[in-house]
């Protein structure tokens, strides 16, 4: 497959221009680049969801033009989206045949085909299991199978490892190698450079909407690759000197929350959670998503009332306070889902600067807004936090994810929080912005900020945190010392395989006995 001179003026942040990529059959080809560099656009073009303004796509020497994904599927190109598109209440078989009933029917023939594909590539998919009973990694394999079932010979995987723990990533990579061995082609999009280097045969780097080069994974280090990606030196999340004090900033004691679902079954979401974050300390919480991290954050923010437990901030009890008082009291909040919780997408940037801090200066005086001051301060945030935007009157929706995030970080930091709750602060953010956000967290930490960090990026967690806790099914099941722990060890604790104080296998034993 060849792409030549692809140019697309697309409602996004960077216009794609002069993209040249050659993907050889039977290889895993990785596509890396900053967020907003144009990778997704390119994939959409390849999958027929967007039409290029200029340039050609050639498959097996034949020039093609895709009008919709159907055309791409007909040409043997399939896409596994970052967000799974599966119906939970259907079985795997039903999900796979859905929309392609004509291929192999919906009964025995389809089941046989699914088993055949599953065996051929070592996917281990069981056709009659309900999708809702499957874990993330299994669901992903169902997605891959779905694409293969439709006859794809080229698979596009969009950030497939974002939702997986390290062990699952390894399993996925084994699957990809199987596919490759059978002569299939995989196009792999990722931010995680280490993973790219371990699985890819060829790497193409995209920067600012165009291809800037390719790399040979055998001879390239992650650092070199990242430098190619951002055009500058790569930052690392590591915090050098410890700034932890013994002054408690956030104390959470016995926080408990249970939810009753539609069937009337009670489920414990937060199970007697207790921890303390001190001034200048970053507490990292590791865990597979959906194990109560989101609820923990919402309980501390006052969005979700807990059933029991106490929360204290800087010596004051805040358990009963409404969200606004907590924010005024010095909690900064970088939400997990910035579109749903952090921004008013259709409002201009300066109004987004007010959001969450409407009662504080410079946004308002008394009960009245101060738009002029808010605008001036937005200009400052845009400047100081390097938010790439032509102005502060554009809507938040028109910025790229990384720039939206920089705006949020700038906004929260501008109010000099005592405690920062950062949920996935660099998710979907490009390497450049990531470094900046890490720097800001580190700098504020030096000045005594306490940080509750929740992240799926284990390198980020280990690199930034002073203390690590692992959350599993609503409980803090394990703790670890970020100085010695490896992502793999942390990953196994996240799946519930380990508990208590995690020791690095060949590390010294002096770290045991941390108070719990």
């Amino acid at each position, binding site marked *: 497959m060849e792409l030549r001179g692809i140019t697309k003026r697309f409602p*996004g*942040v960077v216009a794609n221009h002069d993209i040249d990529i050659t993907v050889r059959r039977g290889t895993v080809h990785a596509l890396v680049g900053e967020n907003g560099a144009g990778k997704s656009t390119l994939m959409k073009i390849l999958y027929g969801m967007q039409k290029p303004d200029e340039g050609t796509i050639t498959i097996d020497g034949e020039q093609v033009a895709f009008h919709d994904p159907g055309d791409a599927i007909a040409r043997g190109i399939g896409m596994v989206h970052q967000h799974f598109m599966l119906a939970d209440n259907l079985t795997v078989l039903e999900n796979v045949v859905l929309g392609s009933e004509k291929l192999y029917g919906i009964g025995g023939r389809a089941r046989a085909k699914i088993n055949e594909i599953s065996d051929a590539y070592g996917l281990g998919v069981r056709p009659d299991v309900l999708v809702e009973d499957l874990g993330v990694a299994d669901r992903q394999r169902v997605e891959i199978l779905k694409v293969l079932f439709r006859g794809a010979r080229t698979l596009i995987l969009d950030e497939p490892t974002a939702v997986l723990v390290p062990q699952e990533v390894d399993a996925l990579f084994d699957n990809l190698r199987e596919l490759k061995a059978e002569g299939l082609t995989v196009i792999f999009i990722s931010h995680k450079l280490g993973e790219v280097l371990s699985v890819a045969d060829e790497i193409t780097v995209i920067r600012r909407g165009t291809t800037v080069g390719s790399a040979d994974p055998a001879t390239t280090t992650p650092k070199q690759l990242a430098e190619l990606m951002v055009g500058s030196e790569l930052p690392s999340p590591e915090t050098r000197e410890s700034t932890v004090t013994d002054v408690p900033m956030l104390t959470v004691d016995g926080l408990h929350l249970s939810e009753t679902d539609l069937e009337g079954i009670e489920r414990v979401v937060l199970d007697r959670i207790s921890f303390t974050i001190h001034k200048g300390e970053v507490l990292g919480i590791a865990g597979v998503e959906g194990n109560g991290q989101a609820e923990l954050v919402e309980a501390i923010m006052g969005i979700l009332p807990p059933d029991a437990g106490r929360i204290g901030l800087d010596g004051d009890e805040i358990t009963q306070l409404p969200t606004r008082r907590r924010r005024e009291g010095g909690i900064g909040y970088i939400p997990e889902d910035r579109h749903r919780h*952090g921004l*008013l997408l259709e409002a201009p940037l300066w109004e987004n600067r007010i959001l969450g801090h*409407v009662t504080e200066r410079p946004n308002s005086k008394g009960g009245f807004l101060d738009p002029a001051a808010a605008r001036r301060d937005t200009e400052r945030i845009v400047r100081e936090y390097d938010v790439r935007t*032509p102005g502060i009157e554009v809507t938040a929706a*028109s910025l790229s994810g990384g720039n939206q995030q920089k705006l949020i970080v700038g906004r929260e930091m501008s109010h000099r929080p005592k405690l920062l709750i950062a949920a996935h602060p660099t998710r979907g953010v490009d390497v450049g912005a990531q470094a900046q956000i890490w720097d800001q967290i580190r700098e504020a930490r030096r000045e005594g900020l306490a940080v509750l960090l929740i992240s799926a990026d284990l390198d980020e967690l280990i690199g930034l945190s002073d203390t690590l806790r692992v959350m599993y099914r609503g409980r803090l099941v394990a703790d670890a010392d970020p100085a010695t722990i490896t992502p793999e060890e942390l990953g196994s604790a996240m799946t519930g395989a380990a508990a208590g104080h995690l020791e690095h296998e060949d590390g010294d034993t002096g770290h045991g006995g941390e108070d719990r």
Partner: protein
Amino acid sequence: MKKIDKERVLLAIAAPVLALVAAFVITALVLLATGKEPFGAFGTMFDYGFKSDSQVEIINKATTYYIAGIAVAVGFRMNLFNIGVEGQYRLGAFFAAAVGGAVSLPGFLQIPLIIVVAMTVGAMWAGIAGVLKTSRGVSEVIATIMLNAIALSIVGYLLKDGRLGHLDEAGTSVSTTPLPSSGHLFNFDMGEDVGQIYGFVVLAVIIGVGYWFVLGRTRFGFDLRSVGLSESAATASGVSVKRMVVTSMLISGGLAGLTGLPLLLNDTHAYGADLFPAGIGFTGISVALLGRNNPVGVALAALLWGFLERGSGRLEFEGYDKEIVGVMQGVIVLSVVIAYEVVRRYGLKRQQQKVGEELAAQARTKKEVTA
């Protein structure tokens, strides 16, 4: 940057203009289909609508519609659909008339008293829907529609001879005790044949300015708008959405309660079933939609509505069916809803494109500088 702003204004105007054009075209087609010549009908409406006495009448009608429209717009700004303006307006006007007719105070007390009663009754009635929504999760659309029916029945029950109503001398209609003259609001006399403009129009303007100020310039308004733009983001930012729902229903209902007052204070001076037209609350919805919840936009929409209704009266004399105006109003509302959505999506997309292009251009020049 400037360019984006200019475009935004253009886009804002594009939607209603598009909707109006579509409405005229469709109405013309309907007229043609019924075998009538459309331009004659439009001509008649324009000629008649621009007469001075028509204009006074239009302004008076529009005053009422405007208040109803703003009442609806307050809800719309936070994604609440107060369909119950109709019931709130009738109940408010009825009790205001009853209380106003029962007491006799000097004008500077009498009129504020009537206004306060109307607003309180309207607010309480709408508040029921707000409380139901926050406490039991009842959709405010359902609740307010039901409350409309109940409001009508309550007014119908109380407006009987011997209860709060009185049979007039001719014995044909029942109305509340007329307000004492201290309860009459001033009018602007425009001349013998032209008529009088309601003094309440001044209050309508104040309401409009107040609406703009509260929404655009106060913390409360920001909270309200943020709930409308994204409930989840507003919650995370510290707004209590439940309290906001109740508060804005109260405000919406309070304004809705005022809707009947231009008629009551400036014209009829009593509440009677045939004196207060049905459907003003629903007109308010159309007007708020067309005016895009913008204080000036709603005013223009209210004037347009008044104009169309005034014109429709004349059509009958010229042999047209006056229902054609109803068709036109319906089509306008439909087109407006569609046009806004189309323009909104286009605008967002266009802006993203613009921002992308500008940033790409910036990046290119930067690269050239460094190179």
